[in-house]
Structures are given as C-alpha cells and as structure tokens.
C-alpha cells in the first residue's frame, strides 16, 4: 500500500497558492493558474514518504512552465524545518503534513537510494558519473544554503554543494555543460563539478541538479567591492560639503586607497581572459565549438539593442529624457557595431557575468553560476557569443558597485552626493580600466577579439550599451529609483572616447 497524491484533496491547489511566496519562483506576475504533477518519483517509502515531483505550472498566457519540487509527507507532523503546505487526512484516515524539502538533508539522503535503484520506474533519477550520488550525504552533516534567486542548494559536509534547479529545463543544462567542461580542462577558478542529476520521465530528461565542490569561506565580489567603496567613502562623508571635487583628486584618492579593489579588478580581468581561453579551446569539447563572428552576429547585437531602445522610447517617464536626447547617438554606435566586418571570435560564454557571480576565498577568485539568464530557454543560453559580452557584464557591474555604495552612503538628492559621487565615478573608472587592461594582456585572449583596437572598443561599447538598455528596462519595472544608474552608463558610453 502506498500513498496516492490524488487522494490528498486540494494538495496541488494549495501548492499553487504557496508557490508565489517562494523566492525561486520566476513567474510571480504570470500565475500560477494551476499546478499539476507531470511525473512523480517516490524517493522514500511509507511510513514517511517523500517524492520528487516534476510539476507543471499553468501561466496566464496559457503556456506551461515546469518546476522541480521535493515533497515530504510527514505522518507525525513533527515541527521540522519548512512551512506546512497542506495538512489533512487521506481516505484511509491517515494524517499527513506536507512540506517542500528539495534542498533539505533528509531529502538528499533519500535521493541516494533512488539513484541506486536505477531505471526500473517510469520516472527515475540518472546520476552522472555513476556513483556521484555518494556526495549527497556526509557524516559531517549538511545544511540548506540561504536565500537564492532561482535555485535551492545544500551544503554537504562543508565540502560539497548540491545545487537543485527549480525551473525544470530539458537536459543538458548549460551550467552542467560548462562547469563539467571547465573541470575537465582543469580550469582552476571554478568550483569543480563532481557530477550531475537528471530526472527522466516519459522519455524526457530535465536537469535536477549539479554536484560540485563547495567553496568554503568565500565572499561575493560585489560585497568585497562594497567593502572597498565603504573604505573610500566612509571618511569622505564627514568632510563632504557639497562641493564637487576635481577628477584628479578623486582618482588619486582611489589609487592611494588602503582598502583598494585594484588588485582584485586586475585579477578578475586576468581570470576572465583565462576563462574565455578555456571555453574557446577545442579541449573543452564544448558544442558548438568556437567560430568567427559573422555579419549576422553583429547585426543581431545591433538589432537587440535597437529593439530595446525603441521600446524604452515609448515609455512615458520624464526621467528618461537623457536617453531621448541621446537616442541618435545610441543608434549610431549600435549601427556602426552592426556593420563591423571583423568582430573576432564567438565562443561559449558565461552569459551572465557580474560581480555577484564571482567569489573570493582562500585560494583566490572563482566564477560561479554558469546558467546564463535562468529565465531564458537553454537553447538560447547555449548560443555562441562574443567574449566581450561577459566583459561588458563585468564592466557594468563595477559601475553598479560604485552607484550602490553611493546610495548606501547618501541619498542621491543630498548635497553631499555631489561631493561623493565623483569619487565613486573615479573608483569605477579605475577598476574598469584595470579589469579591461588585464583582460586582454594575454595574446591568446587578444586573438579572440576584433583585431583593430577601435573595432574592439566599438564592439565592447555596443555590448555595454545593450547591457545598459537591458538594465534600464529592468529598473523601470522593478526598481524605478535606480534608473539613473544605467542612464548614467548610457550617457558616458555615447560621450566619445571616454571610459
């Protein structure tokens, strides 16, 4: 005798009510209209069953998105971690408390058994390489990691990280692919892959999780950048009088700063170059392999930017005036870049590189999260792109870091902001320069870029503009107070010859 989910009345209706409260649920604005199981894999038997559920989530648009859920059917109703989603009795008068526990230690222990039992069931777990499921538990215990954007992770024995993908995309996932390839070629600045898990159901496979080394004692690049900016601006705030300091003074302050981010910016630039070399190398075995940028590639950069721009010009928002004034300049840069005859190589890229995707620990800096933008389908994320796309992401992120720090110190309208903000700009300028120069110092990296220096700068500028336009659209929708950040980026990028 087992448990039938349809015998628990309204279970999936309750799950549909519970989903929008989850940080990792990416369709908050569009649903769910319903939730129903596409596949169920029982990983623990009675008396305390647990199930891995591939859930279909109905959206307002009439389409369906798939998510991974780990359901725990607790007969005792013990006060364990996790909110109760459903509570009640089944027709056999058994009482159940249902919780969602995908990244809880007990669930992972149960997955080991499911992995070992193989493909006897209609839905089953495929672990690559065989035996990698042994990493899912440790005598030293395990803990669920805190708040995450689109996944739920478990740290096992402080040595292994199991990252469960909430959104169920058809396998293989770009992240599993890239992390495994980089591990294979021995690229040191990542958390090496130990294995991956896929859920096979009805002939389809979705990527359930990535098992990799846990980087202990690590801190995000954005946090360390903020630490440096706090050091720079913390004392200036006392003396800020509303006067605008000359740029040379700001630059000098940044260069002489005790808590400098400069070595970090250089190292990150160098490592990003090394990352691209590894991704472009045939040894990585990545598909599709690196190729030359074609005219259609630069045209699509141009077109993506132009579409964004036109959409933004439709938005009724007085603060977008600086964009309207410069729309012609933005178009000109995009159009020029769109006709570049020799734009260098296109390779598999990180796809969503910014300071939140790099961490420092005692062994140095590491790149994380090779998922690309998790909301986009894997096929799109797997497309080749100019390596400068990652560079643009990091450069923009350095500017965001300075802007965030400034907003933490003073309100943008305060007089003090006039004194402080040039220091933040100088910080961003120095770090961006350092990152960029360190990035292409290696001749191998240079060979991936447009051969003419002015073409290099033009392509980078166009990609940064695209990134700014993407940011601007995002900020208008979610953080209207921040639209000045990408706007200032656009203004600077179209002002000729400036960094």
């Amino acid at each position: 005798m087992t448990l039938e989910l349809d015998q628990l009345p309204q279970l999936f209706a309750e799950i549909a009510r519970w989903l929008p409260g989850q940080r990792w649920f990416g369709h908050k604005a569009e649903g769910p209209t319903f939730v129903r199981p596409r596949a169920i894999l029982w990983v623990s038997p009675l008396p305390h069953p647990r199930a891995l559920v591939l859930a279909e989530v109905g959206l307002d648009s009439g389409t369906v998105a798939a998510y991974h859920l780990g359901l725990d059917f607790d007969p005792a109703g013990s006060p364990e971690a996790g909110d109760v989603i459903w509570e009640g009795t089944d027709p056999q008068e058994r009482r159940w408390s249902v919780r969602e526990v995908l990244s809880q230690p007990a669930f992972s222990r149960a997955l080991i058994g499911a992995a070992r039992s193989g493909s006897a069931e209609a839905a089953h777990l495929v672990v690559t390489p065989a035996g990698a499921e042994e990493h899912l538990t440790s005598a030293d215990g395990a803990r669920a990691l805190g708040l995450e954007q689109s996944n739920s992770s478990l740290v096992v024995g402080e040595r292994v990280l199991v990252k469960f993908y909430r959104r169920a995309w058809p396998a293989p996932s770009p992240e599993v692919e890239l992390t495994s390839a980089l591990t294979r070629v021995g690229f040191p600045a990542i958390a090496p892959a130990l294995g991956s898990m896929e859920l096979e159901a009805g002939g389809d496979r979705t990527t359930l999780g990535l098992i990799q080394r846990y980087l202990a004692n690590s801190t995000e690049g954005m946090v360390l950048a903020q630490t440096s900016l706090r050091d720079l601006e913390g004392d200036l705030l006392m003396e800020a009088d509303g006067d605008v300091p000359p740029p040379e003074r700001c630059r000098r302050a940044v260069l002489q700063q005790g808590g400098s981010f400069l070595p970090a910016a250089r190292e990150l630039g160098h490592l990003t170059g090394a990352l691209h070399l590894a991704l472009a190398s045939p040894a990585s075995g990545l598909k599709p392999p690196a190729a030359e940028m074609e005219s259609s590639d630069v045209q699509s950069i141009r077109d993506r930017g132009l579409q964004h721009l036109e959409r933004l010009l439709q938005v009724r928002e007085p603060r977008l005036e600086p964009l309207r004034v410069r729309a012609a300049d933005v178009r000109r840069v995009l159009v020029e870049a769109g006709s570049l005859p020799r734009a260098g190589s296109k390779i598999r890229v990180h796809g969503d590189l910014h300071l939140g995707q790099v961490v420092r620990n005692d062994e140095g800096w590491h790149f994380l999260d090779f998922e690309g933008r998790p909301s986009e389908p894997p096929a799109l994320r797997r497309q080749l792109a100019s390596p400068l796309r990652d560079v643009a992401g990091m450069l923009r992120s350095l500017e965001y870091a300075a802007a965030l720090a400034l907003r933490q110190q003073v309100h943008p309208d305060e007089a003090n902001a006039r004194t402080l903000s040039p220091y933040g700009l100088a910080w961003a300028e120095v770090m961006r320069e350092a990152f960029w120069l360190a990035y292409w110092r290696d001749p191998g990296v240079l060979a991936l870029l447009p051969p003419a220096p002015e073409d290099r700068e033009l392509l980078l500028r166009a990609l940064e503009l695209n990134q700014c336009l993407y940011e601007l659209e995002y900020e208008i929708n979610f953080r209207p107070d921040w639209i000045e950040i990408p706007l200032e980026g656009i203004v600077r990028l179209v002002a000729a010859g400036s960094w």
Partner: protein
Amino acid sequence: MTSREPSRWYQDAVMYEVLVRGFYDSNGDGIGDLPGLTSKLDYLNWLGVDCIWLLPVFASPLRDGGYDISDFYAIHPDYGTVEDFRELIEAAHARGIRVISDLVMNHTSDLHPWFQEARSSPTSPKRDWYLWSDTNSRYRQARVIFVDTETSNWTWDEVAGAYYWHRFFRHQPDLNYDNPEVQEAMLDVIRYWLGMGLDGLRLDAVPYLFEREGTNCENLPETHQYLKRVRAVVDAEFPDRVLLAEANQWPRDVRAYYGEGDECQMCFHFPLMPRMFMALRQEQRYPITEILADTPAIPDGCQWGLFLRNHDELTLEMVTDTERDYMYAEFAADPRMKLNLGIRRRLAPLLGNGRRQMELFIALLLSLPGTPILYYGDEIGMGDNVYVRDRDGVRTPMQWNADRCGGFSRADFAQLYLPPLMDPVYGYQACNVEQQQRSESSLLQWVRRFVRVRQAHPVFGRGDFTIVEVNNPSVFAFVRSSADEEVLCVNNLSRFAQPASLALPAYSGRSPVELVGRVPFPKIGRSPYPLTLGPHGFYWLRLEPGS
C-alpha cells in the same frame, strides 16, 4: 636520558622579547644590563609573562646588535658577566619564568678569535672553519639579503688574500659547517648555556648553515641533518628545552625545520604578521585566511611562534611585490621608515596609536594558533624613532616612569645608548609603565588581563583551529577547540561597526559565554548565528553545552 614525558611548556607560554640593552640600566652607565633585567622580573611576573627571550648578550663588537658574536662563552661587558647571566636565570626560575636566548649559529663576528686565526694563514688549523675562495663567483644563486648595505656575499680579505663568504653583513663571516670541528664546537656552545639552566635557544638565521653549488644555499638537506643532531643532543642531555628556529620563509618551506618533530619545536610564522596589517587596512579577512590556509600542519608537539612586531623591521620578504608596494604606501609614509625589505616601526605607530586596533591585534596574537611573543614596550604602546640608524628606531629605552631618562637609567642623558622617546604622544612622560599601572583602563592593564585569560584556557595554546564561515568579509571568525573546551573568536577588521552571521552547524544548541566577563550570549540555533561587532571589536566566546 630520561623517560619523563616532555611538558611542552612552550605551547602554553606567553613569551616576551627583551632587548637587555634597552630594558633597565642597573649600574648607571647608560646601557641596560642583566642585573637590570633581573631587577625588573617582578614587573614581568606581574604582567604574566611565562618566558623571556633575550636578544644576544654575548661578547660582540655590536656592529649588528650583538648578532656578531666574538666569543660564544662570554657575556658582553656592557650587559654584565656570566655570573649575572646565571643569577638572571635563577631569579627568573624562582618566579616561574623561563628564559631563552638568541644564539647565532651561522656566523661569527670578524673579530672572533676563530676568524682572526683563520685569516692569518692558509695553513692555520682554523682556516677551514670559514669559507674561502680565490674568486667571488661561487654560489651565485644565493641572494644578497641585506640589499641596502651589501652587494655580494663574498668580501675580499687583505690579510687572508682570499674572499670569504658571508650571507649577512661583511663583518659576519659564515662558519663552515662542512667541517666536523665546527659542528662539534657549536654543540659545545649549546651544552654550555643549556647546562647553566637556559630553557631554550632561538637559533638565528638557521636556513643558511650549509652551502652547495647550484642551489640558493638555503634550507639544504645538510642543514636539516645537523639540526636533527642538535635536537638529539639537547633532548638527551637537557630534556624539556626548546629550540626556536628563525627561518624567514613561507610556512610551507619553514615546515621542514620541524622535521618529523625531531628538529626545532618552534618556528616563527613570518608572513602572518604583515598580512594582519594588510587585512586591517583592507578591512577584510582574506590576507589572513589565505596565508593560514597555506600554512601546513605541523608535527605533534610543535608550535608556531607568533609576533606582531619584533626587534627587526616589519619584514616584507614574505609578501609579493605588489603587496610590498602596498605595505610601503600604507605604513611607511616617510621613506625613513623603510629598511631593507621592510618597515622599521613599532606596533603603536603602525596602528596610528589606535587603542582599539592595538587591542584587536593583541587579541589576535593571543588567540591565533601558536605561541604569542610580545615585544618589550609594545604592552604600553611605545613609539619608535625613525631618525636613528638601522633598526635602532625600535630599540629605544624601555619607558618605566616619567623621571629623567624615562626611569631607564640614572646616567647622564647624553650617556644613554640611545635617547628615549620624548615626543608628546609616545614620549616617556606620557607613555610609561608606572602611569599605566596606576590607570585601570590603560593598555598595559588590558594586556595583562588578556594574557591571564589566555593562560586560563589552554585551548589557545594547544587547541585545533577551524575557520568559521561568516557572511561579512570584514569579520574574521574561528574556533579553537580541544577535548576540554571550544572557544569561538570573532574579530571585526573594519573601522566601522559590522553585523555578522556565523555558520556554526557543528555547535547548534551550544551557549556562548564571553570569556572575560562571563556574560552569557544567546544560544546557537540551527540558523546562522547573528552577532554585531563594534569598530575593530572582537569577542572570545566559550561554547558551553546548552542547558
């Protein structure tokens, strides 16, 4: 031979480095001496020091602060006699204080009778006690260490008509350890002083004993072989004494000087100290955690020697070039502060005389894995004098009180070996032992209290060390643990107040109790443990079983 288990006292000790010359002058000649130090043992006992480490007191022309020994069996007359030395040891032992001393193994003064005899004739029986050459081109791969004063490791000697080898100053010829007579002669020197009751030796410049062509002449296997022999002799004839190696190298290279627990019991951890200053300036823990992660495990019974500052410059040999530029820019604003590859400053001026910074650094010194070594004067926050030559700037007289010459000496001011500091911040009238003993809130009283707290918890000396994951890079947290107790140390490297969230899954359910005031903190739960730290603040929390 003895069957008694060695006590490993050096693992629990708080050590205190003394410059005899600068500590207390008992006979009014302007120079500190051994009877002077003996008369101040009560102060060191009050402070809670377990062991004093003497900078060299042997006969010497003092062209390198006594590291140029001209007679291994005599005390320099400035400091007293061999009898005074014996009395110091006895008086220290009577107070439960141990004494260790510097011994320079690698070289002698050029005035040492051995060298004088050696240079006199190619057929002299001592000729082969040193290294001679007709050319200055051998051992080219050996670097020049004192780059500010020396250009080569070979110097021409007119009397000998040959070049002689020296890794340090030209007036310090290296002994030739390939000669068995030299090996025996130095063992006899060790026997003599340990036989007098000395509790250990700090072996100066130990990586350079042997030379081999085609190598950098550092850390050679022959050097380790000889050190093993020294240790075996010491263990057999003088149980429970300590050998402390000075090897200014990366920890993974220094590791060899512990042997398999059969060479030196202690080695200095050199790179930690500059990195603590970097971490403070950058307000993040990584400069420290990086070097600790790169520090190998050491054999049972061995211990790192930790220090914040010592009698030498803050040495920057063990940092990268970029880091060195950074340190110079941050901590040596005046070019006079630079020396060789380092910065010649004391703790207080390096930290801008910041009380909170000094407390944080001393707390780190007392809680990181190793034996802490305080440098005389740093317990009262003494300053330095960048206008005097070489490393003398950090070797000025100890400031006892506000009397003439800072209570150091009854001599005429002009007679002092170095003038005491007289500036309004660090001068002896503002900064001295007497005044700080009278003030309950002084740095001296604070140091004394924390030395005691450390001594009450052997886990600091012998426990394991585990870094705790914290979500804030400005906060550096770790657990010291033994079978008996666990102490959580949390340190804020930022000059701003900081929140911290500590991952302590292994200690869920424990009740932290602050070590100094016994204040109970909230119990550790399943979620990350939240703490708030003031600017440069720190906590020592004993993790007691939950009730």
